[in-house]
């Protein structure tokens, strides 16, 4: 009996050693990617197929994969903790990445800033962060799009389509980026009919599917007949709208397949533009473009195709405005503009062009929005 146990132990030990050897041999194969290729790392905070924020980024990553001389590595569902620092580190140390797209807003401070200092030769392109000259490292930068232009167009189409004159907006957090979208959407709609109001519901976080569905249902119960949103994944809102037979405008990515009947149009990102610019700069060894912004005419955002439910008058007005946006002479936020408590927020004669940084600090809801910041 004792001998048998001894034998078992020895055999087990040998097996273990053999296994460890095989493992070591495989591990020694080491780095998986050719050294002469540019390795690009893309990091997402949620799933890549969320019909929303992350999918819009993943579409650009997919476009990069078609470029020659380039390897793309991706990692999804990375929280905004030291996890993302380690994920960036892994891409650099283990995959040899020299250009990173950590895409969630919360990655910037402190995570990207820290890693950019630690790895001065790696480029960190962040979505949305306010990169500041002199304050932040030169090998980090931010790209973002003026998607409020598309939200304005969404509003115009919604304004034509609504019968109840009540629109609904489901928002994650009352932060400047989101407020700007709510305001642009409402102003677009009210340019068609000033009687239109937008009922706002704030859920409190970026991905709360249950609350988003509840919000959509409660808006519909109040008589809202066009709904849109600014949350990480609009999927639930779009599906709820379709199920309750009202109309919906999309956000982030194309959600038209989720609502074939009620989908009007959408405000979509077109991140391929900034992604390719960064990749080309990195390949050519040019200094990093630290502050990239663009709207419809620069190809940073795009308006979704019109759905079946969009009538001719809506198409005509939206297309007419689009022409001006593309020309660059259309200003959304200009005075006189009142907020929804009656205060003048932009004086008559003042016009804030898209590039105006004041707009990135927006803290009010315009007249016509029912809700509080």
């Amino acid at each position: 009996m004792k001998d048998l146990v001894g034998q078992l132990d020895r055999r087990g030990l040998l097996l273990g050693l053999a296994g460890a050897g095989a493992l070591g041999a495989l591990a020694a194969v080491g780095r998986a990617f050719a050294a002469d290729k540019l390795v690009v790392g893309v990091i997402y905070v949620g799933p890549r197929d969320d019909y929303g924020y992350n999918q819009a980024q993943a579409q650009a990553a997919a476009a990069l994969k078609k470029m020659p001389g380039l390897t793309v590595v991706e990692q999804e569902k990375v929280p905004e903790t030291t996890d993302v620092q380690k994920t960036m580190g892994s891409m650099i140390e283990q995959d040899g990445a020299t250009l990173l797209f950590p895409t969630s807003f919360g990655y910037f401070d402190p995570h990207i800033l820290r890693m950019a200092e630690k790895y001065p030769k790696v480029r960190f392109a962040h979505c949305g962060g306010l990169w500041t000259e002199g304050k932040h490292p030169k090998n980090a930068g931010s790209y973002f799009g003026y998607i409020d232009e598309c939200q304005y167009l969404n509003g115009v189409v919604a304004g034509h389509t609504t019968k109840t004159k009540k629109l609904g907006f489901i928002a994650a957090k009352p932060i400047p980026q989101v407020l700007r979208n709510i305001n642009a959407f409402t102003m677009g709609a009210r340019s068609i009919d000033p009687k239109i109001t937008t009922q706002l519901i704030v859920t409190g976080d970026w991905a709360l599917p249950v609350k988003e569905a509840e919000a959509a249902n409660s808006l519909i119960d109040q008589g809202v007949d066009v709904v849109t949103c600014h949350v990480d994944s609009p999927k639930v809102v779009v599906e709820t709208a379709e199920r309750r037979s009202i109309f919906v405008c999309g956000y982030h990515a194309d959600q038209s397949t989720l609502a074939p009947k009620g989908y009007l149009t959408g405000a979509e990102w077109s991140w391929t533009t900034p992604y390719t610019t960064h990749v080309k700069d990195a390949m050519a060894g040019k200094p990093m473009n630290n502050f990239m912004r663009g709207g419809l005419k620069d190809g940073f955002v795009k308006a979704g195709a019109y759905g079946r439910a969009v009538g001719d008058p809506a198409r005509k007005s939206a297309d007419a405005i689009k022409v001006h946006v593309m020309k660059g002479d259309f200003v959304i936020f200009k005075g006189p503009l009142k907020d929804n408590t009656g205060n003048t927020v932009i004086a008559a004669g003042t016009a804030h062009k898209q590039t105006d940084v004041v707009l990135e600090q927006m803290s009010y809801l315009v007249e016509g929005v029912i809700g509080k910041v």
Partner: protein
Amino acid sequence: MASDRSGPWRHAAEALVIPIAALAAAMVVFGLFMAALGQNPLEIYALIYQGAFASAFSWQNTLSRAAPLVLTALCVALPAQAGLMVIGGEGAVVLGGLVAAIVGHLLSGAAPTGVKAAMVLAGMAVGGIWIALAGALRQYRGVNETISSLLLTYVAVALFNHFVEGPLRDPTSLNKPSTAPIGDANMIGSLPGLDIHWGLVFGLVFCVAMHVLVRYTTYGFALRIVGGNPRAARLAGLPVARLVLTACALGGAAAGLAGAVEVAAVHGSANASLIAGYGYAGIVVAFIARQNPLAIVPVAVLVGGLSASGGMLQRRLDLPDATVLVLQGIAFMLILGSEALYGRLKPFRARAA
């Protein structure tokens, strides 16, 4: 008599061999699963090893992911000694972090060592009170502590969001609402020469201290008696309420410390990034460790390692994030299931004289 003397060793060997065998079995099952999907299991194993343990970098990756889990697992394991199933560590984490951020900001300008100590202590105090609240509800009102601690987490997160996005919001934090920064001087920073923050050391010390407390003191003995049978403990004259509340408070203090360290070593202020689910991940770690404070350390390292190698699988093989969750699921089911084997395997059974 000779066999009696080898008893403790046999138990120790049993407690090591069974979970390791279960883990090995899990790797085999996972390998078969991946093979069914057309992947090469050997390559997967190599990548898991490479991602989690093959180099100094991967070890640091693993350990820094394990650090918060060590502390949040204690929030489950300590009340469990007194027979309470507390799963609301997340609430203690976020409130501990919030209060640490407030204290850090209020005291900024004072001597950094004092500020750091105050932040850590404040985080522990708030976390302790929060979980003790669940313990008190159970002890004095008969409210199920599992449910109440879970619901208290929602209250904690709501309070956290209210303060961070409302009265305590730093007006310069535009699109990422945060409290005012504690200042670079007051940051706890990394372990010397490593890219792992001090939370890991705090966690290790906390685990060892709690192990000694539970195993080798009369307090710990009394606590385990309460956990075994509270009625008998009361009959024996033990201060059951005090024991239950202190066990909850100690657990909560561990989770509150995790939150304080997140603020003081990573974020520099309190914001929504703090709500990362560490409290929930700690529940699994504590259960796999069979509520043993010492066993929490290797289990947390294992979970940290799996999560580190999950990234590797995603990047090299284009597998979804869920892949490593499947492995975790298989491993945890088998490890928990293997508990049925204790005392049933021949080599570990007491030999008849």
